[in-house]
C-alpha cells in the first residue's frame, strides 16, 4: 500500500515537474536534468507499468537503470558546466578532483580484477550498480566540497538539482552498500521515499527560473597573479602555524 502510494506520487510529481519545466522553459536551460526526469518518467515508470508481469521486465529494468545512471552523470556535468562557467579556477579544481575519484575507483576495480580472476563473471548487476552509484556519490560529495570551499554562488535552480540528486544517489549508495538485501522492509521504502523527497526538492527549487547570482569581480586572469597570491597565502598560513606552535611550546 505504502509502496503504491510512493510509486504513484512519484509519477505524479515527475509529470508536474516536466510540465513546469516546459512552461517555464527551464527544460531548455537544463536539458540534461529534464532529459533524466523524462527518461525516468517514460522508460522507468510508465514502461515498467506496462511490462511489469512480462519475462523481459528484469532485462528492461537493469538496462534502463544503467541508462539512468549515465543520464545522472550528465546531470552532474550540467551543474558543472553551468555553475562553474564563470569560475575557471574552481572548474579546474572540480575537474581534477573528479578525475582523481575516477582514477581511484578504476584502480580499485583493476586491483580487484587482478587478485580475483573470476571477479567479472561473479559480479552481478546489483554489485555493479552499487559500485557505480558509490563512485557517483563520492563524485557528487567531492564536487559539492569544491563548490563550498570556493564559495561558489549557486542560484536556486542549480542548488535544487544538486541537492536533490545528491540526496537520492547518496541514499542509494548507502543502502546498496550496507543493506544489499533490501527486500520489502524499511530500507525499500526509505529508498523509494528518497526519490520522492528529491522530486519535492526539485519541484520547489525549479518552480520558476531564477538567475544565478553574479559573483564579485575578483578575477586574476594571468598565471603569475595566481602564483603570487598562492605564495602570499602560503606564507600567511605558515606564519599562523609558527605563531600557534610558538605560543603553546615553551
Amino acid at each position, binding site marked *: 500500500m505504502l509502496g503504491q502510494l510512493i510509486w504513484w506520487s512519484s509519477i505524479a510529481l515527475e509529470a508536474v515537474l516536466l510540465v513546469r519545466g516546459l512552461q517555464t522553459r527551464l527544460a531548455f536551460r537544463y536539458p540534461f536534468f529534464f532529459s533524466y526526469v523524462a527518461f525516468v518518467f517514460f522508460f522507468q515508470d510508465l514502461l515498467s507499468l506496462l511490462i511489469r508481469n512480462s519475462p523481459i521486465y528484469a532485462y528492461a529494468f537493469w538496462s534502463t537503470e544503467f541508462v539512468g545512471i549515465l543520464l545522472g552523470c550528465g546531470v552532474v556535468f550540467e551543474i558543472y558546466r553551468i555553475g562553474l562557467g564563470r569560475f575557471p579556477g574552481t572548474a*579546474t579544481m572540480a575537474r581534477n578532483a573528479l578525475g582523481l575519484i575516477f582514477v581511484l575507483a578504476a584502480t580499485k576495480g583493476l586491483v580487484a580484477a587482478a587478485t580475483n580472476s573470476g571477479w567479472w563473471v561473479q559480479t552481478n548487476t546489483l554489485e555493479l550498480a552499487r559500485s557505480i552509484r558509490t563512485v557517483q556519490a563520492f563524485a557528487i560529495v567531492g564536487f559539492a566540497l569544491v563548490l563550498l570551499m570556493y564559495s561558489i554562488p549557486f542560484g536556486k535552480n542549480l542548488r535544487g538539482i544538486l541537492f536533490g540528486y545528491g540526496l537520492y544517489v547518496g541514499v542509494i549508495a548507502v543502502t546498496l552498500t550496507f543493506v544489499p538485501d533490501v527486500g520489502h522492509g524499511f530500507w525499500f521504502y526509505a529508498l523509494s521515499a528518497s526519490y520522492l523527497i528529491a522530486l519535492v526538492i526539485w519541484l520547489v527549487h525549479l518552480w520558476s527560473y531564477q538567475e544565478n547570482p553574479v559573483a564579485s569581480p575578483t578575477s586574476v586572469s594571468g598565471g603569475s597573479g595566481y602564483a603570487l*597570491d598562492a605564495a602570499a597565502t602560503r606564507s600567511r598560513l605558515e606564519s*599562523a602555524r609558527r605563531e600557534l606552535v610558538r*605560543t603553546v611550546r*615553551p
Partner: protein
Amino acid sequence: MIGFPIPALFTSALLIIFVLLIVKGLAAARDVSSTSNDLLDDAAEIPPCPPEFVFRVFSSGDARFVSGTQSHQLVKLFRSERKEVALLWVRQVSAGIQRTIRDHTRMARSSEGLDFITEVKLLFLYGELMLFCGALFVAIQSAGPAWLGRVAVYLDAQSQRLARTQQAVRAATTPREFPRVGAA
C-alpha cells in the same frame, strides 16, 4: 552482525576525531562574531595580542603566584579569566586563518592559471591549522591554558631527552674512524 577489522575501526575513529576537531576549529572563528559578550562582539576588530602576552597566558608563572595567595575565589576567577583570554586568542587566530583562505579562494576561483597541486597543498595546510585550532580550543576549554603550558613543557623536555638518548646511541653504535696507516 558485520565484522570490521580492528585497524579499520581504529582508523575510522581517528578520522572522525580529526574531522570533529577541524569542525571545532572552523566553528571557533564563527564564535567570534556570534557570541553575546560585549568584549567578544568586536573580536574580529581587536588587534592581535602581542606574542609575549599570549605566551604569558599559557605559562604557569602567574597561576603559581595567584595560588600563593591561598584565596580560592581569586584562583577560580583567575582561571576562568585566563581561559576566556586564551579562547579568544584561538578564535582570533582561527578567524585570521579563515579570512586568509577565503581571500585566496575568492581570487583563485576566477583564475585561469590555477595549479591543482598548489591548491591541494594549501588545503592541507589549512586543514592542519584548523585541526590545531580545534585541538587547542578543546584542550583549553577542558583543562585550561596553564595545564596546556605544563603539558607542552613536559613534552618538550621528553622530546629533548629522547633526542639526547638517540644521539648517545648513535654515537655508541657508529664505528670509530681510525687514522689510516701512512696517512699524513
